[in-house]
């Protein structure tokens, strides 16, 4: 599908463009911003990131594994010391906690990569190096008939440059 890429100097111009495009029922919109901005989240109306589920599941699995490895090893190779428990949950909480943080943290990063579709082997259509610097970008895909309207919307919102991208 073809798309139009608009370059914006001002933040509110870019967010206005996103809002206007969404009102025109253009679904496939990507905004580029040099730094994270709440204004884009509000313009897109996106729900909370599902990364938290990766964190929760990773943390629970990690804590389970941390306790399990310590208990299993103690049971497999028991060191019997005068009436003391073979598997003692108090010191084993250290393993439960540390492995929870380890696996939970790594799962969080995995969740971020998986949801954000990173790593990306090639630069996608609609990206411009200026978007890592001072400018904001909006890339919207549409049918051949919609492209003209997308371009007009972007220019009305304040785009300093609009170009076709495919």
């Amino acid at each position, binding site marked *: 599908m073809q798309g139009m890429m608009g370059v914006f100097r*001002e*933040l*509110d*111009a870019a967010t206005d463009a996103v809002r206007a495009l969404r009102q025109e029922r253009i679904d496939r919109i*990507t*905004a*580029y*911003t*040099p*730094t*994270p*901005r*709440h204004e*884009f*989240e509000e313009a*897109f109306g*996106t729900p909370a*990131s599902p*990364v*938290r589920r990766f*964190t929760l599941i990773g*943390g629970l699995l990690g804590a389970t594994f*941390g306790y399990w*490895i*310590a208990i299993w*090893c103690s049971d*497999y*190779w028991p*060191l019997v010391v005068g009436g003391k428990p073979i598997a*003692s949950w108090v*010191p*084993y909480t*250290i*393993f439960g*906690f*540390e*492995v929870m*943080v*380890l696996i*939970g*943290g*790594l799962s*969080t*990063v995995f*969740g*971020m*990569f998986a*949801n*954000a579709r*990173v*790593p*990306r082997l090639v*630069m996608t259509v609609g*990206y411009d*190096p*200026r*978007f*890592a*610097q*001072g400018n904001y970008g909006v890339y919207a895909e549409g049918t051949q008939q919609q492209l003209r309207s997308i371009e007009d919307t972007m220019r009305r919102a304040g785009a300093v440059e609009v170009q076709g991208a495919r």
Partner: protein
Amino acid sequence: MAMRNYDEPVVDAALRRPNIASADIQLPAVRDYEQVDREIAGTLAPSFGWFGALGVAILLFLWGAGVWIYQIYWGLGNAGYAPPVMWGVYIITFVFWVGIGHAGTLISAILYLFRAGFRTTIYRCAEAMTVFAVMTAGLFPIIHIGRPWKFFWLIPYPNWRLIWPQFKSPLVWDVFAILTYLTISSTFLYVGLIPDIATLRDRERNPVRKQMLAVLSFGWRNSDSEWRHFTRAYLFLAAFSTPLVLSVHSVVSFDFAMALAPGWHTTIFPPYFVAGAIFSGIGMVFTIIIPIRKFFNLKHYVTLNHLDAAAKLCLFTSMVVGCAYLMEFWVAWYSGNEVEQNYFWNRVFGQWWWAAWIMLICNCVLPLSLFSQKLRRNTVWLFGLSLFINLGMWFERFVIVVPSLSHEFEPWQWTHYAPSWVDISLLVGSFGWFFMWFLLFIKQLPVVAISEIKEIVPPKMRHAHGHHGGAH
């Protein structure tokens, strides 16, 4: 009584010195995003001074590495140990470097969760310091075991010997804690670097270097979707790192607190160690950041306001540490245990008085100068003080490790300890190793977080309205 005219503009002191303990941080000399990119990317150009410093660091590291090889060949007997003092400079230096590693995650994670604005310009430096300090610390238990090629026996893995680690041993707790801390702090550092590497990629003209930066940035594009997941992941990593900071040095303190030796077997150790670690880490942050802001021309990023706020944190942790020192004496007195009381008397007024007083003066007396606002904003004083704090915190660990082992329960156990040239060489070598990595880092990757600084700079707007900061 004079009436105040409320129509007159009030010059608010907070505008001149904003309350950067909150997220309300201002960088008046930074005007736009292009300036941020240009000035921070500009710090990556190597200079003669940097080559000189790197050369010194590499020489120190090579000296330490050579002496380690000597020790492996001739045996651990060269390390100055004499029974019963079988823990010396290596364990002291291990605890010292783990402690240094704590301020990085404190500044990057805990202060992030508390929205303390002053962290923004110094956290990258502190995070990198954490990673390299933990890398340095991790070497010392391996050096200390004498047969370093056996260190992997501490890791639980299926093996033909059918032997597993003793999970009730603090040594195994250390392995898990330190490896987790190293992994999570490295991950935290790298995740924060990804958008900045993308910025460097887009500015780079050399095609080979551009390609390398593209790989290192994972093809990051600054899209709204990437930022949405990034900010959430960063928040959760910070939330995980916060208890991790507290746990790691608590676990390190268990190495001592679990042992039956005078001065060690006490429940105050975990909070005492954590406070000391944060204090020593902030000291090292000053040692590093003050030359960087001078030689990299970053004074308008790392402003005196930031140093002032960090100095207040330094003063606070110094007083917590001082309180812990006093509490140790109080516990010994209140316990009624003569061995414990003798031990503490010996520590301060007996055999080890010189080490204890170096510790007390450097960690408790000199930092009191930070009650003065003038000194908090005097970079020469802060830098000098930070060197004393580093010295004092190394001696704190000396005072914890050596006096206990050299003055145990029975008089026939009482002895002396003196580090050998091998110990000292490995200590010096560890500084070479640490600064070698740090110096390499600061010329390859941005030492100040570009994307987070941009969040502070008000974005260009068509319609003027309040700047609420970024989404980070």
